[in-house]
């Protein structure tokens, strides 16, 4: 093969590749194909391996549990007695809370349904450039793209792409992740931006007048329409006025240890509209307030 022919062939192949790449960027046909086949195949391989690993871990742990079962039993009995006493003491508080909830008609958000999922893997392969995890639920089992992921500690991220029974979720630490949040105590709104798995999160667009303090918890505001309102996301680490913008420079850390998660909850939208927050402004402008009666 002459050099000229080789260069010509390489050029033609490059043009064909770029054509295919641009066409796929527009239509996502090949992305969908590889997600449906490749991710499904990967999930199909990893799921039994994961189950086998879990079974052997359980077997091993059970053996060690038996070794220390007597001591643990005594300790747990003591703990149960202590908790029963505490429960009795708090019974009155619980009853009061129930009454107060009924009184203010606090809405219980029924628009999201939790579904358990197991984490199969973290980033996989050379093409996994985003901070992500692979889970064992796909679009046919509750893991549609966009579905939020949480644990009992807080927000994890959301599903990025899904095959029938497996999906890849984008973690909140990824630089392309943006989450609308507000601070739990001062209620200052902002956008939480990821900086990478080993780096701190950044809270942008918080007004300088906001009284945010280190240690404060950031919760989802629900204003982005992607996440339910009120899920804890991160803890504020540092707060200082920004040198470059008119906003505050705030850093935070995720509440969930994203490097060691094994199970997550998917929040599947149920289709039931979110009850209106009593403190929320009415959606429609209904006219000016009625004039006050003139006092004599």
């Amino acid at each position: 093969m002459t050099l000229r022919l080789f260069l010509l062939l390489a050029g033609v192949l490059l043009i064909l590749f770029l054509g295919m790449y641009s066409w796929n960027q527009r239509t996502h046909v090949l992305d969908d194909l590889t997600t449906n086949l490749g991710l499904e195949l990967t999930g199909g391989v990893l799921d039994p391996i994961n189950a086998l690993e879990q079974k052997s871990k359980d077997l091993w742990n059970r053996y060690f549990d038996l070794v220390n079962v007597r001591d643990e039993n005594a300790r747990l009995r003591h703990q149960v007695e202590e908790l029963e006493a505490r429960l009795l003491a708090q019974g009155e508080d619980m009853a009061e809370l129930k009454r107060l909830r009924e009184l203010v008609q606090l809405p219980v958000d029924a628009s999201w349904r939790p579904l358990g999922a197991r984490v199969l893997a973290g980033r996989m392969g050379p093409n996994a450039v985003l901070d992500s995890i692979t889970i064992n639920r796909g679009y046919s089992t509750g893991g549609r793209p966009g579905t939020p992921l949480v644990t009992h500690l807080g927000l994890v991220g959301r599903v990025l792409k899904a095959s029938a029974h497996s999906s890849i979720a984008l973690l909140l630490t990824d630089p392309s992740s943006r989450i609308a949040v507000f601070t739990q105590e001062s209620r200052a709104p902002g956008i939480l931006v990821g900086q990478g798995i080993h780096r701190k999160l950044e809270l942008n667009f918080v007004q300088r007048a906001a009284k945010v303090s280190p240690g404060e918890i950031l919760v989802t505001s629900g204003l982005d329409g992607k996440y339910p309102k009120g899920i804890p996301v991160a803890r504020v680490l540092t707060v200082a006025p920004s040198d470059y913008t008119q906003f505050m420079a705030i850093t935070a850390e995720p509440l969930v240890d994203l490097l060691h998660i094994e199970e997550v909850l998917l929040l599947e939208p149920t289709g039931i509209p979110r009850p209106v927050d009593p403190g929320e402004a009415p959606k429609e402008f209904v006219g000016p307030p009625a004039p006050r009666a003139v006092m004599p």
Partner: protein
Amino acid sequence: MKKVYDVLWWLIFIVCATAAQAAVPGVDIMTVGLIILLQERDYRNLAWLLPIFILMQEGMGTRSFGAAIIWYAVVIILFKIGRWLFEVENFVFVFLLSACLGVAYFGVTWSLDPLQDVAFNTEDAVNASLMQAIFLPFTWWFLMLTRRWKKHEQEN
């Protein structure tokens, strides 16, 4: 019967490579399989295994479709260049090839990340390239130990 063993070996390889990739983020173990196929000139198995490798890498990744094609094309081209110059079935060649592939890995990441608006992080890319370059020769060496029967078969 030997063909069945061979296919079985490759199926086990795919399962193990997937599990290994899940354990070590960013590393491509299937590249080792591709190098073995090229060394053995086993184009019949290459014809069905390469699409599976591409499909799986694209499926488990978060890049737009195309990166795996570029990456495996680079592997094949570098291997073919190496075949002109060296004896390809020894550890030294694989070691040199893996060093070149480490550089190529960095190049592929550097060229494809901006196409998808992904922020290119030099430190992460260097780390991933080094990991790939280090993993490749030792994985190849280990896998070749499990394929001695194939070598004997070719010699006979």
